[in-house]
């Protein structure tokens, strides 16, 4: 499959300040792509430039082969955007918001009713259809924004922290839908998130820090590169285990009552374990999490500010 988003040597300056410095990346059509980074790293600048709101300083940004600076209207028709801040029309009802959006995006009149029903069903807001948006809860508003972003069947859906502030059920629901959308309709989803467990669902990830891309790969590859599996072993005979670990050249640390052992080389570990099977009382093997990847790469806690 080809690339639907192509970014080459994109730079954005605000006066002297360089927000994004010469970044390049591609997003494959029909994939879920996560853009991660600490606050102020250049995420929003990039997403806003791709959405035709900000002007680039230099570089080339294409969506579905169209230039975001010179073919704005073509780009706008083929994308759906859910911003970090609400852009709903608070004075109007749910139904009116969606209808207005259909007018803006030239959705054929015959299909409007059917599409509204479809997207509302999707985000579980069918019963709120006649309610004023101002009367909805924060989570409902966000769901409505996602529904609205989808109603014109965009090729690319941009989501700037789509699930921030939502309860776990709603988050799960939205994610199930995003994955389904990507599979069935071949929509490309481009998102930023603070939740590392959400980043793991994505096909590919780019991590931006200080205006440059510091990692860009599949979640699997990033995890493989930046995290190590660990085994947590509890034993009755510490000295014997330590001696074996040293002999097999496995790094370890003694924690309160267990050994934290480097578990990348599974063969060696299994041999140690089988030699000690009378003494070992408990084993737990932990895979590296995406949080570890992020910390390793950026050296910062992503949610420091919260």
């Amino acid at each position, binding site marked *: 499959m080809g690339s639907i988003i192509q970014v080459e040597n994109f730079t954005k300056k605000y006066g002297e300040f360089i927000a994004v410095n010469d970044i390049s990346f591609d997003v494959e059509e029909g994939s879920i792509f996560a853009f991660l980074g600490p606050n102020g790293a250049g995420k929003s600048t990039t997403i806003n430039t791709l959405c035709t*709101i900000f002007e680039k300083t230099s570089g080339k940004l294409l969506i579905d082969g169209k230039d975001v600076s010179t073919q704005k*209207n073509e780009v706008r028709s083929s994308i759906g955007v859910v911003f970090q801040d*609400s852009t709903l029309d608070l004075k109007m009802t749910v139904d009116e918001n969606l209808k*207005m959006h259909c007018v803006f*995006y030239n959705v054929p009149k015959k299909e409007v009713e059917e599409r509204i029903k479809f997207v509302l069903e999707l985000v579980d807001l069918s019963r709120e259809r006649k309610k004023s948006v101002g009367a909805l809860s924060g989570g409902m508003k966000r769901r409505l924004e996602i529904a609205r972003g989808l109603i014109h069947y965009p090729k690319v859906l941009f989501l700037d922290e789509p699930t921030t502030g939502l309860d776990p059920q709603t988050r799960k629901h939205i994610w199930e839908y995003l994955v389904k959308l990507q599979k069935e309709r071949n929509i490309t989803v481009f998102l930023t998130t603070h939740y590392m467990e959400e980043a793991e669902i994505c096909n590919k990830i780019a991590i931006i820090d200080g205006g440059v891309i510091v990692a860009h790969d599949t979640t699997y590859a990033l995890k493989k590169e930046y995290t190590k599996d660990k085994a947590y072993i509890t034993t009755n005979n510490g000295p014997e285990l330590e001696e074996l670990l040293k002999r097999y050249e496995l790094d370890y640390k003694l924690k309160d009552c267990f050994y934290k052992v480097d578990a990348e080389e599974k063969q060696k570990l299994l041999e140690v374990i089988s030699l000690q099977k009378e003494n070992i009382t408990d084993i737990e093997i932990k895979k590296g999490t995406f949080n570890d990847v992020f910390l390793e790469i950026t050296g910062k806690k992503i949610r420091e500010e919260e």
Partner: protein
Amino acid sequence: MSTLFALWKRGLKAFIRNKTGLVFSLLFPFFFVYVFGAIFKNQFIENPIAYMLSGIVITTVFESALNIASTTVDDMVSGFMKEVLVSPVKRLSVAMGQLLSAATVATLQGCIILILGMFIGIRFTSWLTPLWVLLTMVFVGVVFSSVGLYLATVVRNGQTFQIVKTAVTMPLTFISGAYIPISMLPNSLKIVSYFNPMTYATAFFRMIVLEKTDLSLTDLVKEGMAIDINGFIVTPLMSLGIIAVIGVIFIFLSTNSFVRTDFSRLNRSSNDANALWG
């Protein structure tokens, strides 16, 4: 076209739903009729209530049209304009939709007061008069909506706009001849009133409502329907021309400015939205 119509409908819906706003917008003018009508009872105006009412109707149209500025600023702050910005609609049709809905709401409000006024003092003898009155209200509505839209794109901040509104529009309505005849104003204020577009709108509208189109120029000046600037007399037709010129200038300025406004910057100043989404 459909965008324009949808935004027009949206403006009307917002107007109809805001019932408290509607009630208060009607209370205020009638309070004025009562107060000023009493003051001018024994002066040289033959029908003070009708005189006052005609002024108040046009002032209502004027203020309601300028209100487009606060609704547009609201739309910027709430983020709705950002949604418009990332959609493929032409900004010009958005500006036009806002303009027309404001002009329509202004005309409607003017009509409500006019109809109520017909019970307490305004009489039409010709069937053509209501038609001319309506046309004038639409015209004045469009002109001052474009002034309001221009203000919105320049001011862009709800609180600042409230200050501008009180500091500018209120005094302007007071020295437009709508409530107090210009001839009664002190000289310095008279000069200011000559530069006030509202003065000409009021003079022209009053002539239409009170059916004084066939008066001689001297009588028109006496009734405050033609304006005597140190011997130079602005006829009602010239008044109409002045408003038209202002309209053309501001329609151009406001749409131009609206198309260029960077709405994305405004959303950040909205604390409510940040509290909700941050």
